[in-house]
């Protein structure tokens, strides 16, 4: 058995240009074997280009792509063993479901009986038993997506590449198939490299996320790190809603810093790896759900910020408030809006200092 932490895929200083634009700029990362790795970012950030370089559809201008310890830059796409699930599935319209799934095996020269058996097994596995003789255009979006996954998995690839495979589905199905994909990956113990622009998807599916912006990896880490300890304002803002409040370092003692913002100051923990100096401009990063609203008269623990409700929006599972504190709007989410009365007028925004994260500007 290989050790679980063994590096399966490694990109080293990979750069790709299209004419004048640099789509991917000096990207390096490592994906451990058997992990669910996600490249997350807005459109045009270079995530799909990166995935397509791994698949061999684009050649990097610089840098190396190493798969299973071997440099694969020069290997043609069809010899890489990197099966891919495409955003629009790219099912062959002139082949039935079975023929689609069998295609890779046919190319590999797997004999008929063995091929039949493996196609049958994989169709059962992805929950399409009995639909083998259908044509792709007779299937629903979710079924087509399963065919695309089955068609790739039947080859038992080294690594499965998925390019926004859920983005063409409606919201409910997308969430359902999300869990199925995750369960599948864990059952197979296969390495998945997944591209998406949907941060919910990335957070809920992944063991590891690389957030990309303008051709670079802004930050890579576990979903938890990415969400609660973003290193840049772009990251904080891209992954979920966030309050980003400008402030200045007033005092430094050990790993604690006093940050002044508006007419106030709070003491927060300095994240490891962040070098601060007194007078440095920073941003305080607080997720809306880490804040709580209290009546103006209340005296909760932690930091208290008196403010006035400017507007609110009912989102079903939560009530989102925009509260003006010192002339600046803060987003505050209150869960389970049905359980309590709405706030209006003057309120107190409460937050525990440990929920405030500091980002260098």
């Amino acid at each position: 058995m290989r050790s679980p932490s063994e590096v399966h895929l490694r990109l080293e200083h990979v750069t790709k240009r299209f004419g004048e634009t640099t789509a991917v700029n000096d990207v390096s990362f490592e994906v451990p074997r058997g992990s669910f790795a996600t490249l997350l970012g807005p459109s045009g950030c270079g995530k799909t280009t990166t995935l397509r370089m791994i698949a061999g559809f684009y050649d990097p201008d610089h840098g190396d792509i190493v798969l299973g310890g071997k440099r694969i830059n020069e290997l043609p796409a069809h010899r890489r063993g990197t099966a891919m699930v495409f955003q629009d599935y790219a099912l062959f319209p002139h082949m039935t479901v079975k023929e689609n799934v069998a295609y890779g095996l046919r190319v590999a020269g797997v004999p008929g009986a063995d091929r039949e058996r493996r196609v049958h097994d994989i169709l059962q596995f992805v929950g399409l038993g009995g639909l083998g003789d259908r044509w792709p255009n007779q299937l629903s979006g979710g079924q087509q997506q399963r065919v695309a996954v089955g068609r790739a998995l039947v080859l038992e690839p080294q690594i499965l590449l998925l390019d926004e495979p859920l983005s063409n589905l409606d919201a409910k199905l997308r969430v359902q198939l999300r869990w199925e994909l995750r369960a599948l990956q864990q059952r197979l113990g296969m390495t998945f490299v997944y591209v998406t622009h949907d941060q919910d998807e990335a957070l809920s599916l992944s063991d590891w996320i690389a957030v990309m912006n303008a051709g670079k990896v802004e930050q890579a880490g576990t979903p938890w790190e990415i969400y609660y300890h973003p290193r840049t304002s772009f990251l904080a803002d891209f992954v979920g809603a966030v309050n980003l409040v400008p402030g200045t370092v007033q005092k430094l003692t050990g790993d604690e810093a006093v940050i002044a913002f508006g007419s106030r100051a709070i003491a927060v923990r300095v994240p490891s790896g962040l070098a601060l100096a007194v007078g440095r401009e920073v941003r305080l990063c607080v997720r809306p759900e880490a804040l709580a609203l209290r009546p103006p008269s209340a005296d909760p623990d932690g930091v208290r910020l008196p403010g006035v409700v400017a507007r609110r929006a009912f989102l079903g599972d939560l009530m989102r408030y925009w509260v003006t504190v010192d002339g600046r709007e803060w987003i505050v989410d209150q869960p389970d809006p049905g359980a309590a009365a709405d706030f209006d007028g003057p309120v107190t925004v409460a937050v525990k200092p440990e929920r405030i994260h500091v980002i260098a500007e």
Partner: protein
Amino acid sequence: MRSLQREPGVLLALLAVVALVAIFIVYPQVRVVLTPGSAYGDFLSAGSWVRPLGNSLQVMALSTTTAVLIGFVFAYAMVYTDMQWKPFFRLIGILPLLSPPFVVAAAYVLLFGPRGIITYGVFGQTPIIFGLLGIWGVQTIAFFPFAYQLIADVLSRSDARMEQAARNLGAGPWSVFRTVTLPLSRPGLGAAILTTAIYVLEDFGNPALVGGQFTVLPTQAYGLISGFGDLPSAAAVSTILLSLALVLYLAKIRLDGGQSFVTVSGRASSMPRPPVPAWLSWVCFAVCGALCAMILLVYGSLVVSAFTLTFPVNTAFTTSHFEYVFSGVNGVALRNTLVYGLTAAAFSSLFALLAAWLVQRGIWSGRRILDFLLIMPAAVPGLFFGIGYATAFNEQWMDWLNRGVLIIISMIFWNIPVGYQAAVAGLRQIDRTMDEAATSLGASSLRGFRDVLVPMLGGSLRVGFVTTFVRAVTTLSVVIFLFTPGTTVATIRIFQLVNDLDWGGATAFTVIDIGLAMVALGAMAVLARGRIALGASRA
């Protein structure tokens, strides 16, 4: 398809395509252009080409104008009105595309000539019909259906939603047409006009039959070779002709490039076009009816002549003309036509598909040049192409090669643009992720092309095959310098029979030649319907 070095199969295919294009498209044409050599000076200063050049330009301007105007009315009527009998008009409009263009001239002589059915038979006149007016009239009838097809294609691609939106904003039918439809389709219309002009400019058969003393460039080139054996001068005339056609063609390509307004989404908009007033439909109906009556008169007279002893003198029914067509040298010509046409169509469409794939999907320098070379034969006058082959491959050491093979090869490469453009259009409709899906499943580029793209391109392949076949069996100018007694074809024989004033034989032969083309087109329609039915059962 990624890097060529990594896929030797693709590299090999590319080299083969480039070599064939160089030998069979580039080389013959270069040979013609270079043939006059030092004789260019003498020839140009002698000035014998000035009049035919002027004539060519004059007749091109006249015939193109009338053909395009009539074609436009026909196209507008077919696309915009809800007039009656549309399927009938569509069928009649296709007919001239399926016949050698010069049959209109033949019918014209038959109907209006000195011994014409109408002029002499009805009115007892023996008018002089040869010359500019004759060519103009004949080319108008012969080429307006081409203009109609091109313009109808452009108009039907303009988005009905835009027109509905304009109507919704308060514009009337005429103002919608003037302010939305026309501006949107202007590049396409320009391209259609230029294409029609090229057809007219290159036309050899009609001027040869009704031109009389009115010589145009193609007939001058032909006369120089057949009359005087003066290949250098003929090559020089052809080069002038080629330059004109290339100028028109380059202008057309520029317009095509600017066609970005028109939505080519691949699926027809399901929204109906806004209705036009009833009176307009009726006017259109009357015009189309008159035009179709004229076409029917042309082809009807051919059919009647084919089945009567010596029309119009002796109108006794006979099948002897057909027996004549099936026997002797005519039978050989008929068989050759079929064999050459089918072989050329098969090879041309397949080769075009491979070439289109290499150009459209490949990433290698020089693909734009190959792309241009594959489209260029569309601008090359058939006569020029034929002279090119006659010049380039008329070598002693090539005598082992059957002349029929040379004719087939000339048909393959002269028609390459047809299949190539159909294939490129088809490939553009297929997302690249299809290729990539095959590749990511382990198929090499060539394997993916064979397994995935070729089956999906069946429609383009059929269009390429049928159009090439029709063009191959109806071309006169390409083969007129290539045929030998054993390798003669239908169009050559028809041309010779008309010149011999053997109207019965000529018309019977024409009817059969058109019949071949119709069968091919019918087969395609049946195949396409089969595909549509299959698709429906899947839905």
